[in-house]
């Protein structure tokens, strides 16, 4: 595909949309950090303008035929030329719009949530940094650029997770997230280096062109690099081996969880996959691995969510499982199904997190039983929005999740992965079950009589700043309800993404939606039976099997495993080696240098000293030596 003639207009708009958040970050961090309202205004203004730009671009290029590429040379080193640029095509445009919209909404929402926090200005600075990094990531034209902003997003995430850094668990969680995603990024970087060595370019249009890549790379090499890059995706999107950082990341402020750890940042991994879909689809092995990893993560995370008591943790697990679901869709060979689910998921998961946030804000606890007991159901709009979001998450008919989930399920069935399809069905069942478990727990609390009504808590919260929160909730809920009906236009739009996009066949199994709805209905009924009805004991079937409850509650002992591996491999192996190296070689060399200098000084001092007899002795020794030498050597 040829780059179209550059449209300066689009370039200017995109560049403005990218630079504004960076500018906001700089201004806030340098100048206005201590002036909270001004900082918030700057940051929200920048995000709002970015959103406007994104919408403008989307409208402008709705009928685009070929991707637009603007590239400039960033640095030249010998034979290497590293370009930096902007790539506008349907995938990046839609993701750009999603990121801009969610970050704008979440920033508005944070007005209410973060009000009165001492780090208010700093928080908005970090948010702007994140918005800048994420927006640039979506429109990057080369993998290297993506990698750079990928790491910047990780940095922003670290800063925001550990935002309340005086809380030990928060700073620990930030560290854990940083280290775990970095583990995947090492693989990503290796993949990039390999690709660079083989191809000499990291431009996405080149990489996704099957003809050029297939001609220059052997199939084994393609598989290897694809798997290495997939390692980065696994880290960033919290998939199977590296999934435990995401639930811990819920230590950050909840709007951050909504923005980073549900809608945008973790989706960067899936986005990268869809970006490089043409490349990945050249390697059947990589696609199979992707499908497997997606399936495993989805099932694991769903089971964990079934026993979680923390409302944010439930949604965090569900995020992991939905990301796994997207990867399944992509791995099964449908770019549109994965990308569509990515977009709808961004909407309803942000909605769910922000609702959870309203509950937490009012009840002062994360425990959903406690929230129910304190009368969380009296927060009307939050409850309604949670139900809408959970309905979308479970794939109930009129909501956006229904359409995207149906797409993925249909593709799994079409592409001949019956096991994956069954696993997806089980996963969908579990998803519905745990979503409605949460809702019923909040709606029908046991022994709610003696709890104080939530209104009493309103006194010390800023009742006046509630409106941003509810407005945003309703906006997102509206999007969630409506978005599903835009499936066809979106599909047409994304179909123009060019290479690597297989014409997605709409699910032609007429029984599938019915079956999925039935499944969801059964799951809801079961949740009702166990948590909703009057005499329910509110103990799930999982919790009645101690073994399973323990396994799920402990996150399948993944954390223990990591801790064990860390102890044995890193602390006892590598780190001991390095310590020994440090002590013996480096310290030893320096100490030796010092010691020998001192020794030399002592010798010289001794020679220069006033002790005349030593000099005499040396003289005598020299003379005796001379005599011996002459006597023998002649």
């Amino acid at each position, binding site marked *: 595909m040829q780059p179209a003639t550059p449209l300066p207009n689009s370039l200017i708009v995109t560049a403005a949309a990218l630079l504004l958040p960076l500018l906001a970050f700089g201004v806030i961090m340098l100048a206005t950090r201590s002036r909270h309202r001004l900082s918030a205004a700057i940051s929200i203004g920048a995000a709002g303008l970015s959103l406007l730009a994104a919408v403008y671009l989307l409208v402008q290029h709705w009928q685009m035929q070929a991707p637009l590429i603007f590239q400039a040379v960033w640095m030249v080193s010998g034979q290497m030329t590293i370009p930096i640029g902007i790539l506008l095509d349907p995938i990046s445009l839609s993701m750009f719009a999603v990121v801009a919209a969610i970050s704008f909404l979440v920033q508005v929402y944070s007005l209410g949530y973060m009000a009165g926090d001492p780090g208010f200005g700093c928080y908005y600075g970090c948010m702007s940094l994140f918005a800048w990094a994420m927006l640039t990531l979506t429109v990057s034209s080369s993998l290297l650029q993506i990698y750079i902003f990928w790491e910047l997003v990780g940095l922003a995430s670290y800063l925001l997770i550990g935002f309340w850094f005086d809380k030990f668990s928060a700073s620990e969680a930030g560290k854990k997230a940083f280290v775990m995603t970095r583990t995947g990024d090492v693989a990503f970087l290796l993949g990039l280096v390999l690709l660079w060595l083989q191809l000499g370019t990291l431009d996405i249009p080149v990489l996704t062109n099957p003809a050029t890549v297939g001609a220059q790379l052997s199939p084994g090499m393609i598989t290897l690099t694809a798997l290495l890059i997939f390692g980065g995706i696994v880290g960033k999107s919290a998939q199977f081996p590296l999934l435990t950082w995401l639930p811990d990341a819920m230590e950050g402020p909840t709007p951050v969880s909504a923005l980073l750890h549900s809608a945008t940042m973790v989706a960067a991994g899936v986005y990268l996959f869809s970006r490089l879909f043409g490349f990945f689809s050249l390697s059947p092995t990589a696609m199979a691995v992707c499908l497997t990893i997606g399936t495993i993560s989805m099932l694991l995370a769903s089971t964990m969510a079934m026993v979680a008591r923390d409302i944010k943790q439930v949604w965090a697990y569900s995020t992991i499982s939905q990301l796994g679901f997207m990867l399944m869709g992509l791995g099964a060979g449908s770019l549109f199904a994965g990308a569509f689910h990515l977009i709808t998921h961004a909407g309803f998961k942000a909605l769910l997190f922000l609702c959870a946030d309203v509950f937490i804000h009012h009840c002062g606890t994360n425990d959903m039983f406690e929230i129910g007991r304190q009368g969380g159901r009296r927060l009307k709009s939050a409850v309604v929005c949670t139900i809408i979001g959970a309905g979308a998450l479970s794939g109930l008919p009129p909501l956006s999740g229904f359409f995207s989930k149906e797409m993925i399920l249909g593709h799994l069935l079409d592409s001949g992965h019956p096991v994956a399809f069954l696993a997806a069905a089980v996963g969908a069942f579990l998803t519905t079950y745990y979503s409605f478990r949460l809702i019923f727990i909040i709606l029908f609390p046991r022994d709610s009589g003696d709890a104080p009504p939530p209104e009493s808590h309103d006194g010390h919260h800023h009742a006046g700043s509630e409106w941003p929160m509810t407005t945003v909730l309703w906006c997102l809920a509206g999007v969630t309800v409506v978005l599903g009906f835009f499936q066809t236009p979106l599909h047409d739009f994304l179909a123009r993404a060019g290479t690597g996009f297989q014409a997605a066949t709409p699910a032609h199994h007429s029984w599938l939606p019915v079956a999925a709805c039935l499944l969801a209905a059964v799951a809801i009924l079961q949740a009702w039976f166990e948590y909703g009805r009057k005499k329910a004991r509110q103990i799930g079937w999982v919790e009645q099997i101690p073994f399973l409850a323990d396994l799920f509650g402990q996150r399948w002992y993944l954390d223990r495993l990591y801790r064990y591996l860390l102890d044995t491999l890193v602390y006892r192996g590598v780190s001991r080696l390095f310590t020994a190296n440090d002590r013996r070689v480096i310290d030893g060399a320096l100490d030796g240098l010092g010691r020998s200098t001192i020794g030399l000084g002592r010798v010289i001092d001794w020679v220069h000293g006033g002790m005349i007899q030593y000099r005499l*002795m040396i003289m005598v020794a020299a003379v005796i030596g001379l005599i011996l030498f002459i006597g023998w050597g002649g």
Partner: protein
Amino acid sequence: MIVPLNHILLLSGLLFSLGMFCTLARRNLIMMLLGIEIMLNAAAVAFVGASLHWQQMEGQAIVIFILAVAATEVTIGLAAILVVYRRTDSVDPDMDAALWEKGGSR
């Protein structure tokens, strides 16, 4: 000559070694001076023995020189030791610069 030259040279070597040991090992300037004297006399003994053996008078003349040199050496050496003793209150050959300076300021 009744005494063979070898014996005289042995005696001279022994004396020289004793003198050298005294010079090197004793921590006392006067004893070092004494050691030097003994070494000089060992050389003188060797000269006398050699002159006797070869019936040459120059050796004996050299011995007279040696005695003169020894006398001057002792005079100057003792004078120097006396100065050192006045300055540092000791006749230790391990003369510290600091000690020397301290003595000088007295």
